[in-house]
């Protein structure tokens, strides 16, 4: 937070020498200069494209059982015509799964599920964390103390363990897994927002606004919170990466998404005992998880360097 304030203060000097650059444009330029951030952006763009047009890209319905339609065997190896698979055999580039379904179509549709999980969990956590952190930082005193100690207790648990425990209370299923991860991730956003609120609330422009008669609500949401957006975006993007990873792990253990939903973790979990006979059923869902998580990690790192000029300067030294 302090960082983007610094940026604001430096800005007039820059504008004197060059054509006026907005903070956003400066951040944008720093962002695009980094190769890794760009790669993350490209991968994510591709994934979003795949998620939107999943039904058009996938050759089959993800839940369609193909046993009566084609001549296939259970957990059949991938068959790619370009790589010498006989032309008279139907093409299944990622093979067939344990229920005679096309693995490629399932992996493609899994993109939708994973991105949905990432955005909704972190979205929920950001909303909850922002409210909690804003109230805590703005109110101060004992309210702040109680809320933050509660957050400390949540943070004292390894997050994955707490998520498992919450799901046990709520019951299995994708929806409950989403809630569990959102709860576990809330404290870190609450902390980020609280820190921003604390650092801004005594600044002159806030006092000025208060002197002009702005109420608590207006002060908090119009004057103070916009300053917390930069760190929230960074924490959020990196949070999506871990949320997707944890949600997939929960599904792998059978606590999250339930079959027949084509969720990567569930697909991996269902076929994990077949890893020796049908490794393709483990390989493809796993590598898809990895690529998706990698995209958000690269993007998050890039955004951090771009939005935090302090770090960016340090790195270019």
């Amino acid at each position: 937070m302090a960082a983007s304030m610094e940026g604001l203060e430096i800005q007039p000097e820059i504008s004197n020498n060059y054509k006026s650059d907005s903070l956003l444009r400066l951040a944008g330029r720093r962002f695009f200069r980094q190769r890794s951030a760009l790669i993350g952006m490209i991968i994510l763009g591709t994934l979003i494209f795949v998620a939107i047009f999943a039904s058009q890209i996938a050759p089959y319905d993800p839940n369609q059982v193909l046993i009566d339609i084609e001549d296939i065997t259970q957990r059949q190896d991938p068959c790619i015509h370009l790589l010498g698979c006989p032309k008279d055999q139907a093409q299944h580039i990622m093979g067939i799964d344990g229920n005679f379904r096309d693995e490629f179509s399932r992996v493609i549709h899994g993109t939708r599920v994973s991105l949905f999980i990432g955005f909704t969990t972190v979205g929920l956590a950001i909303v909850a964390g922002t409210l909690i952190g804003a109230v805590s930082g703005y109110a101060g005193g004992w309210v702040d103390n109680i809320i933050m100690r509660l957050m400390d207790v949540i943070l004292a648990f390894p997050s994955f363990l707490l998520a498992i425990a919450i799901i046990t209370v709520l019951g299995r299923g994708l929806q409950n897994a989403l809630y569990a991860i959102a709860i576990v991730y809330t404290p870190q956003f609450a902390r980020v927002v609280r820190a921003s609120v604390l650092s801004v609330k005594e600044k002159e422009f806030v006092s000025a606004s208060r002197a002009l008669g702005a109420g608590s609500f207006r002060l908090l949401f119009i004057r103070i919170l916009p300053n917390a957006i930069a760190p929230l975006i960074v924490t959020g993007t990196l949070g999506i990466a871990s949320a997707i990873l944890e949600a997939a792990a929960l599904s792998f253990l059978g606590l999250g998404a339930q079959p027949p939903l084509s969720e990567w973790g569930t697909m991996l979990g269902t076929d994990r005992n077949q890893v020796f006979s049908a490794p393709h059923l483990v390989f493809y869902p796993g590598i898809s998880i990895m690529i998706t998580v990698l995209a958000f990690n690269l993007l998050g790192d890039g955004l951090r360097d771009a939005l935090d000029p302090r770090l960016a300067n340090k790195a270019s030294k």
Partner: protein
Amino acid sequence: MIQYIIRRIFLAIPVLFGIMVVTFIIARSIPGEPCFVALGERATVEACDAFNKRMGLDQPILTQLMIYLKNVVRGDFGDSISDSRPVFTILTEKIPVTFELGLVALIFSIIIGIPAGVLSAVRRNSAVDITTMVGANIGVSMPVYWLGLMLAYVFALLLKDTPFWLPPSHRLTAGIFSTPFFETWGWSITEDTFGYSVLFFISNLYILNSIITWDLEVLFDAIKHLLLPAIALSTIPMAIIARITRSSMLEVLGLDYIRTARAKGLVERVVVLKHALANAFLPIVTIIGLQTGTLFAGAVLTETIFSLSGVGRSIFDAITGRDYPIIQGFTLVVAVGYVLVNLIVDISYAFIDPRIKLE
């Protein structure tokens, strides 16, 4: 110093208390009757009442909480519902499995992560740096269980009949047994002997036990079985440690005293390892402490894949089986361990950097 340590421990007490209350609440909110788990789905109402009375489940919830807190402070975690042994005994069986696995994984990640990070900081933007950082980015993004399964596929199946073959499950090959050191040495110890649980705990660390009794067959077998899970578990911490080491080193290497050290003609190796690394160590230690949480999450998954019966797997089984005392006891131990490790990390700052005044 001692004052600081004592104060830190006191500060941790409210958090520990919170953890106990949370584990209690979670264990009690799990839907389903524990009585059916213990006595079977068709247990009669009378049998269930008697069971609830015996386990104290008929008391008001606040009384239950107070009893629970009092017992925990005395080291009594109650008896497991599903196999009616004391939770404490089960803990001494399971913790060594996870501890051994986690420790070996942590050692792997440190001895590879730190040098990799140092090297990429020193040779910034070189091929080494780029390879390490690409590797680290992939490492943090990899699902542990997927890597575990892939490693098992490669080392247990593809490399079968080669010297590189590694077993994909369990702690020892069937037929090989680890004899506790106190039995090898002929100590007359029974389960009632004072300190038995400590000795039993140590003997359950197979690698340590086989080293002190010099049982090479068990030692090699245990190491072979531990390699795959430990490698799988170490990737994420390794990647994170390498990244932090790199950025921390880059920061320190840009400082004036490093220029001075170079100017006075010190060999680059001394500058990097003695002057720079020593000062770059603080964030590295912090992140290593935080990795205990990651390691634990990973342990649940790695233990599942490699059929190891450790803490992670037990908590998972207890949750599916609604075994309250086990869930409470194990979760508590893990969370307390996590808090303690981070406490130790905080205290270690003072040893690493004498400038930090512990007030």
